[in-house]
Every structure is written in C-alpha cells, then in structure tokens.
C-alpha cells in the first residue's frame, strides 16, 4: 500500500518535473514546479520529517515560487522563447541521460545497511522532529547557522542594490 502510494507520488513528481522543462510558457513551468515541490513535501512526510515538509511548502512553494511568478509577471514574458536548435537540444538530453545513468549505477552499487545512527522513528515521534532539528542546529551546527544568517543579510542588501535604478 505504501509502495503504491510512493509510486503514485513519484509519478506525479517526475511528470511535473518533466513539464517544468518542456512547457513553453514560464508561468506553466512555475506551476508545475509547485506541483513537484508538493510531491517532495509528501515524500518528506513519508520519511518522518514533518518539519522539513512544512518548510518545503513555506519556503519553496510559498516564497521562492511566488517571487519567481512575481518576476515573470513583472517582466511580462508572454511571448514564447525562440527554441534552441535541435542540435543543442539533443546534446543537452544526452548529457542529462548520461548523468542519470551514472547516478543509477552508483545507487545500484551503493549499500546503506551497515551504518545506523541513533535517531529512530520512535525517538522522532517521542521527542518531536522540530526539537531534534533544533538541538542539532544550535549545538553542532551553530557556526554554519550564523554564517547562513549573514548570507541572507548579504542577499537582502545585494537584491536591493541590484534593482536600484541608478547605482
């Protein structure tokens, strides 16, 4: 049953991912991308990571996609782009297919059964997923967390400076 549900969600995710790269209009691509993000959020719930699912929806579907759609509408990009030559299309697909083949080879040869950390499903249910993330983030990953806040500050300032009419 769970496997069936997984295949359903995976099918929707891959199909909407395919639509992202094939749709002529950027708005349709953006909507398909939202669909992919929702499918990934479902995967995160299936993987007992509800906090990640929540911020997937809030940050990606809620903030980034809204920003992208906002920019698409601001720039008024209704006209279809000129298609690339079939030559470059074929090469791009070949490179992508090769990359997928390589990844599949690694996945097939990989083994994850021997290593096991201390976090179990019962522990996530008992302590809470958000608490576990918070514990890890504010102890072992405190320095990266602070660096991320500086990165966000720099991004804010950079976005404001870049969009000023005259610098």
């Amino acid at each position, binding site marked *: 049953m*769970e*496997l069936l549900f997984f295949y359903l969600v*995976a099918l929707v*995710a*891959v199909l909407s*991912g395919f639509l*992202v*790269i094939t749709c002529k209009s*950027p708005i349709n*691509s953006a909507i398909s*991308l939202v669909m*992919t993000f929702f499918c*990934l959020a479902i*995967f*995160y719930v299936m*993987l*007992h*990571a509800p*906090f*990640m699912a929540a*911020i*997937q929806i809030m*940050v*990606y579907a809620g*903030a*980034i996609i809204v*920003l*992208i759609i906002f*920019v698409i509408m601001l*720039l008024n*990009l209704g006209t279809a*782009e000129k298609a*690339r030559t079939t030559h470059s*299309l074929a090469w*791009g*697909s070949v*490179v*992508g297919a090769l*990359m*997928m083949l390589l*990844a599949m080879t690694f*996945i*097939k040869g*990989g083994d*994850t059964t021997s290593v096991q*950390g*201390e*976090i179990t499903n019962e522990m996530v249910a008992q302590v809470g997923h958000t608490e576990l993330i918070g514990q*890890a983030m504010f102890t*072992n990953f405190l320095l*990266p967390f602070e660096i*991320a806040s500086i*990165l*966000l500050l720099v*991004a804010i300032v*950079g*976005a*404001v400076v*870049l*969009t000023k009419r005259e610098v």
Partner: protein
Amino acid sequence: MFTVTVHHYLVVSAILFSLGTIGVLTRRNAIVIFMCVELMLNGVNLSFIALSHFLGNMDGQIFVFFVMTVAAAEAAVGLALMIAFFRNKESIDVEDFNLLKW
C-alpha cells in the same frame, strides 16, 4: 519486499536532478533555467532527507535546511539580476547574456 526502500527515493531524486540538468542545458529563458536549478536542488534535498531517515542521522536534514537558505538567497539575488538585465536589454534570453563574453 513491498516496502519503500532508500533506493526508491534515491532513484526519484536522480531522475529529478537529471531533468533539471536537461532543462538547464536546453532552455533559453533565464527564469526557466533558474527554475530548473531549483529542481536540481530539490532532487538533492530528497536524497539528503531519504538517507538521513534510513541512516538514523539528523545531519542530512540540517544540510537540507542550509540548502534551502542558500536557495532563498539565490532566488533573491538571481531574480534581481534578471530584472536589472531586462531593464538594459529588454530580454532575458541567455543568448543575449554576452556582456562579459571575451
């Protein structure tokens, strides 16, 4: 036999990443290329969280948190760049991005 293993998730994430790669290489609209980069980042996020769950380790999910932070910063700066470029060239076709071409 009929349970979802880590390989299922890794295969989906590999497919999403490859789709993003094909999109980056074949599309010409800069915003669509940007969305394909987001697709690739999400493919990586999925494999991080799947491995984190199946290995019983929280570090992968913290990594996903930082990937999302960087993606948000990238969205802000990237879209600002596109607006600035569109203001100059009236286009966001990557074929017109040749100001720094040697």
